[in-house]
């Protein structure tokens, strides 16, 4: 399931433009006219880190390990949080 989510997000990445500001990230869908704040996605530092790390070759375990190395939180907590984040992110990028 996680692999499918990562793949779905990786496939949609080319259709978004990113703007890093400080530790936050803004995702803007490449569509005609972005007229609604709900069409954007803003992410905090950890969300931005995960977004940047995702590509089609990235595995869920790899993602968890990279976040663990960067933020030093229990792996089981990281795995639960990333799974939840991937679900939300996949829904956004496939429907924006």
């Amino acid at each position, binding site marked *: 399931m996680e692999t499918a989510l990562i793949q779905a997000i990786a496939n949609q990445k080319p259709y978004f433009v990113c*703007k890093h*500001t400080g530790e936050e990230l803004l995702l*803007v869908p490449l569509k*005609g*006219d*972005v007229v609604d704040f709900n069409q954007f996605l803003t992410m905090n530092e950890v969300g931005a880190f995960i977004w940047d790390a995702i590509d089609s070759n990235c595995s869920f375990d790899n993602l968890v390990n990279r976040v663990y190395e960067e933020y030093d939180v229990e792996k089981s907590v990281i795995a639960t949080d990333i799974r939840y984040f991937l679900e939300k992110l996949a829904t956004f990028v496939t429907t924006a």
Partner: protein
Amino acid sequence: MKRGKEHVVTVADFQFKLSTAEQFEIVLDDGFDYFIGGNKPEFDCTISCHAGLDTKIIPTTTPIYSAKTNDAILWQIYSDTNGILLTVNNPENTAELQQIARYNEAEKSLVVYSEAFEHDGKEVIESLKYPLLPLLLYYIALANDGLMIHASGVFDGEKGRIFSGFSGVGKSTMAKIWHDAGSTIINDDRMIIRKIEGDFWMYNTPMYYSDKPKKAPLHHVFLPFHNKENTLEKLTGVKAIASLMAFCIQHGYSAANTQKLLDLIGELTKKCAVNRLGVVPTPAIIDFIKANE
């Protein structure tokens, strides 16, 4: 209407040269009256004007972007050999093709085809008939650290402020309140913002009515909404960028252009404070803004 074989037009300090090698003259509507002329040594775009709509030059491929309202197509953009090709429909009758235009950004050139018509007993062409000029300005602005935005703008002699939002949020009302208090209205609907030597400037553009070209430095950005009391919330970071982006004119098919726009808005929000502004539309809003901005 101004009529001639050649015109120089300056909008937002961008200079355009329109000319035709055909027997027709080019007309510009009253909105251009004060924008005609210019003294820069180079043109930001040379516009070659032709009579007749040769639909055979429209690519058979799918447009890369279509601007629609409800089910009507306002204009479409196609990939073209050396840039883009635009087909623009008459906004009052969208079934009628009004212009075909080929834009080459590298060569700073636009070739416009439109039907000739009779004006004061002469056959003329109106190559920049609305909305082609705003479409061209979008690309020219983006290529030169600029953007187009739905906003009204006022200058009180010291500070420039814009009020950005869609129809009904009170852009024109705010402009009138500041005007009544002695400020200059730069425009009350659509503006160009440019970054020049690190500072941001706002400009008006030709409208359907006659108005002089105006520019002023920009210091504060407000996103007004109707409210029971005057309120102000300062926006920062990605929230400021996203909020402002929503009111910028965008043809979001191009990642490069969207990135350019995002980066420019990012710089703008660092230089000019962005505020969400709850408004009770009375003159008291002026003192409220000055005390809280």
